[in-house]
């Protein structure tokens, strides 16, 4: 990929709203997973999640009237877009809105809104259903709401590809920029799985941790005693531009998106391909397109499914590609701290990785206590590590064997120097 750069980042996540708040918390290596309080989940096998707090306090033009018409996943996407645009110092009046596009990932849709309307449908008939349902529930609703709020009119897409959705959305956005069809892209994902029906769907698939009594220890990727992931609500959105356009307007230059590759395991409905062959091919292809020498990869942000099938196949794929050097590359799953945002996770992983590049600090995989002989890489256990990262890979995988890999590179010496204080927290 030629000179597509990240110029702005917005995040709404359990550890914080906005990149400063988010980064301040994720480097601490502690958990933001807690029991679900939004509804009675006592009969669910998994009833813990990463939940967003304080969203309603972010106003900025998002009126009560607008919020009545949208689901939580659109609300988070609107706030996150605003954060990204501000971070990028973008005034949309200076952009051609026909050449500005939106690319979003999402898995489940807007069930918090939809569930109450379906209940009313069965209790009261069709007249009981809010007309707002029409534009609130479906996976592309956040794309629509962002476009309406800002008057954005360019080529846009929503990708539904389970946990790989937002990485794909960012890649399609970057490729569209590369082809010259757009000048500015907002790309990322949003997900709101903490609703009765959405959580039921995730539970039914049987990939969620049941460590309900110890939520802070529940999400344990690569640990021998893992028992699945923990879902989280949240959103991550980037602004993408061509390098020369970004330089012309003195935009922040966070990182370059160097390549993307996606393929399928073609193996099983639930389990990943055991030897990780297809994921290895995806990593190889991403490295090839990026022009990265294997020795130059400083960090891998893993999918970290916290299932035996996911963790072992991901580890094998990395070993297949990097050989002996695999054990020297830090491979972490920062999402172990706050949960997996499914269709938004790839975008939040990109943001975490870019912040890691900027601050020279790798966020850890927490809850790593019992090594699994099948998973023998450096997973950056439990505590953040200082490391200079110039080149990194982000891996997202979805149910049914979807693999997605993106390569990123820091631009120049865009590095914020500082040190960790006595509590291990980074201070500049």
């Amino acid at each position, binding site marked *: 990929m030629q000179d597509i750069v990240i110029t702005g980042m917005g995040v709404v996540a359990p550890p914080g709203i906005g990149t400063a708040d988010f980064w301040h918390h994720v480097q601490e290596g502690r958990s933001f997973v807690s029991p679900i309080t939004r509804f009675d989940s006592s009969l669910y096998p998994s009833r813990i999640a990463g939940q967003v707090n304080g969203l309603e306090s972010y106003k900025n033009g998002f*009126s*009560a*009237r607008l919020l*009545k*018409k949208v689901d939580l996943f659109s609300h988070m996407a609107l706030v996150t877009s605003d954060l990204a645009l501000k971070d990028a110092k973008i005034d949309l009046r200076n952009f051609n809105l026909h050449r500005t596009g939106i690319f979003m990932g999402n898995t489940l849709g807007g069930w918090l809104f939809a569930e109450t309307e379906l209940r009313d449908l069965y209790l009261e008939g069709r*007249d009981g259903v*809010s*007309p*707002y349902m*029409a*534009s609130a529930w479906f996976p592309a609703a956040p794309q629509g709401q962002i476009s309406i709020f800002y008057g954005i009119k360019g080529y846009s897409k929503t990708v539904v590809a389970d946990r790989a959705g937002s990485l794909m959305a960012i890649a399609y956005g970057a490729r569209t920029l590369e082809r010259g069809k757009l000048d500015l892209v907002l790309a990322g994902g949003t997900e709101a799985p903490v609703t009765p029906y959405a959580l039921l769907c995730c539970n039914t698939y049987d990939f969620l941790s049941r460590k309900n009594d110890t939520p802070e220890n529940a999400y344990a990727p690569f640990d021998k005693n893992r028992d699945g992931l923990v879902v989280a609500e949240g959103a991550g959105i980037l602004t993408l531009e061509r390098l020369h356009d970004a330089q012309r307007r003195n935009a922040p230059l966070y990182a370059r998106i160097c390549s993307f590759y996606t393929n399928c395991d073609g193996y099983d409905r639930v389990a990943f391909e055991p030897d990780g062959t297809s994921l290895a091919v995806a990593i190889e292809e991403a490295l090839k397109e990026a022009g990265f020498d294997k020795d130059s990869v400083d960090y891998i942000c893993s999918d970290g499914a916290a299932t035996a099938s996911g963790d072992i196949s991901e580890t094998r794929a990395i070993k297949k590609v990097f050989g002996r050097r695999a054990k020297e590359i830090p491979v972490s799953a920062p999402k172990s701290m706050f949960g997996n945002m499914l269709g938004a996770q790839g975008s939040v992983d990109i943001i975490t990785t870019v912040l890691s590049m900027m601050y020279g600090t790798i966020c850890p995989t927490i809850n790593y206590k019992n090594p699994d002989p099948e998973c023998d890489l450096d997973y950056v256990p439990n505590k953040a590590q200082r490391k200079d990262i110039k080149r990194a890979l982000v891996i997202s995988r979805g149910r049914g064997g979807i693999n997605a890999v993106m390569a990123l590179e820091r631009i120049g010496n865009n590095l914020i120097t500082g040190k960790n204080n006595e509590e291990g927290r980074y201070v500049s």
Partner: protein
Amino acid sequence: MSVEQGVRELIIEILSVQPEEIKMEEKLSDSLGVDSTEMVNVILALEKKFDLHINDKQITKISSLRDIITLIESKRAAA
């Protein structure tokens, strides 16, 4: 409660707008930026509040507060 007062209260509640924003003669789409789903929501609420039915043909003819009040009063007079 007059029809006008009832309609005003309903619009304020459904659209989360201030009383002074509602203009008698202007199109709701112009004065309040009402979109099609909001208009359907207003009509469903009017039907419930005033216990009447507004058919599709009538919906296309109401665009201002005055239109709504006139329609409701004519329906009440005909009942």
